[in-house]
């Protein structure tokens, strides 16, 4: 795991552009891989393809695997590639088994601000342009091994350009003040005027992530959605 030092950032939501503090935390260096998830389901049969309850994972759960305990013919190609087609519940259970947890939206977004050389590359045009290009490319048939992905300032791989990732509070609304809208907040999330409420209009890539998250339900599985685990830092690093 890599240590993400504490700091503040201005997330996409919030009318007052108030910086949100993020406490120091630990984040997995890589997204969880097919091989790692396979080991997990072998130990926890209730998370195997044929045994999982629909409440916790939809019918496409692990659809790219041959069977309950086998990746199948593509194993050689994708063992070290990020696991996908997993639900929020499955991701959460995996992390809990390791004594970890899913990162919060704020933690994930804060860590994702980093380029190769800077913890906060918000104003780095070139980095931003590259992120946009990453997001505009279709998924390859076989996702690359996690070690072959973009490594950021913290030594964390694949935060951008590999797969989308689950967060613990993906279902937090992006509304401000008292919620007077009916039902879902999708209008605020997807409508173009929603973007004008974004604190940094330039940051369209983050906006795409928030919009994507808001479209998810906890038992959904998606062919390019994986996860990595986090842990609250047990050591508070004094930084003057």
């Amino acid at each position: 795991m890599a240590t993400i030092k504490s700091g503040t950032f201005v997330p996409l939501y919030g009318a007052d552009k108030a910086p949100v503090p993020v406490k120091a935390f630990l984040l997995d260096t890589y997204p969880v891989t097919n091989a790692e998830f396979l080991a997990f389901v072998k130990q926890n049969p209730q998370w195997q393809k044929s045994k999982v309850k629909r409440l916790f994972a939809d019918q496409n759960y692990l659809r790219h695997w041959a069977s309950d305990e086998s990746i199948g013919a593509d194993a050689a190609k994708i063992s070290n590639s990020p696991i996908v087609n997993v639900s929020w519940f499955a991701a959460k259970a995996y992390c809990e088994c390791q004594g970890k947890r899913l990162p919060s939206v704020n933690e994930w977004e804060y860590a994702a601000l980093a380029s190769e050389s800077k913890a906060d590359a918000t104003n780095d045009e070139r980095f931003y342009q590259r992120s946009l290009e990453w997001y505009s490319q279709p998924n390859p048939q076989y996702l690359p091994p996690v070690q072959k992905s973009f490594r950021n300032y913290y030594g964390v791989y694949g935060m951008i350009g590999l797969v989308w990732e689950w967060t613990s509070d993906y279902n937090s609304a992006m509304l401000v003040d008292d919620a007077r809208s009916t039902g879902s907040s999708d209008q605020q999330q997807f409508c173009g005027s929603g973007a004008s409420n974004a604190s940094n209009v330039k940051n369209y890539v983050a906006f795409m992530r928030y919009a994507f998250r808001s479209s998810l339900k906890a038992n959904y599985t998606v062919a390019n959605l994986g996860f990595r685990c986090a842990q609250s830092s047990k050591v508070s690093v004094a930084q003057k």
Partner: protein
Amino acid sequence: MKSAPYPLLFALALGFAACQQEEHSCCVKPNTTANRTTTAAAQPVGALTDMSLYNLSSSWSNQNGEDLKLEKLQGKTQLVAMIYTSCGYACPRTVADLKVLENRLSKYSSDELGIVLVTMDPARDTPAVLKDFAASNSLSPDRWTLLTSTPDNIQELAALLNVKYKNDLKGNISHSNIITLLNAQGEIVHQQEGLGTDPAETVKAVEGLRINL
């Protein structure tokens, strides 16, 4: 954790040790019903269906401070909503909407139809606070169950109810307003979205369950 832990400069030995111990240990508390233990007090019930919310094995406290599992709500139709008691605008409306439904559905006894309020603010909404809230809103204890749990458990239930909520820095909670209808098995059969929504559809959905023929 990967096979080659990234060398850290900080004294993270503590954190690492904890991870390493956990790494190969089998999961002891899966959040499914695989290892469900039924307490002596629990009624023996049939196996839960795949889509029953009562598959959640989390522990909750009601307004009387009694610990319970969600499956205790099994066996009758339930209307479920998420609120918090210090909420100024939306939650009183949600409770009012639920009372309208209660009136429209008064032909069903409290053994047939229950109403459940789940707090989104466990820090402030202790069982005692929930009990006061129920009393000051004249919520009959036979009909209404108010629940609190850990933030994680609440977040998990919210995910299943499709309730989106967020704590802002000012102590407000932004949230979507949804009343969910669960059948006796705990499956979602209908959701009423918004505030002051016409209850007709929800009433029809409850009647469609044909619970007291």
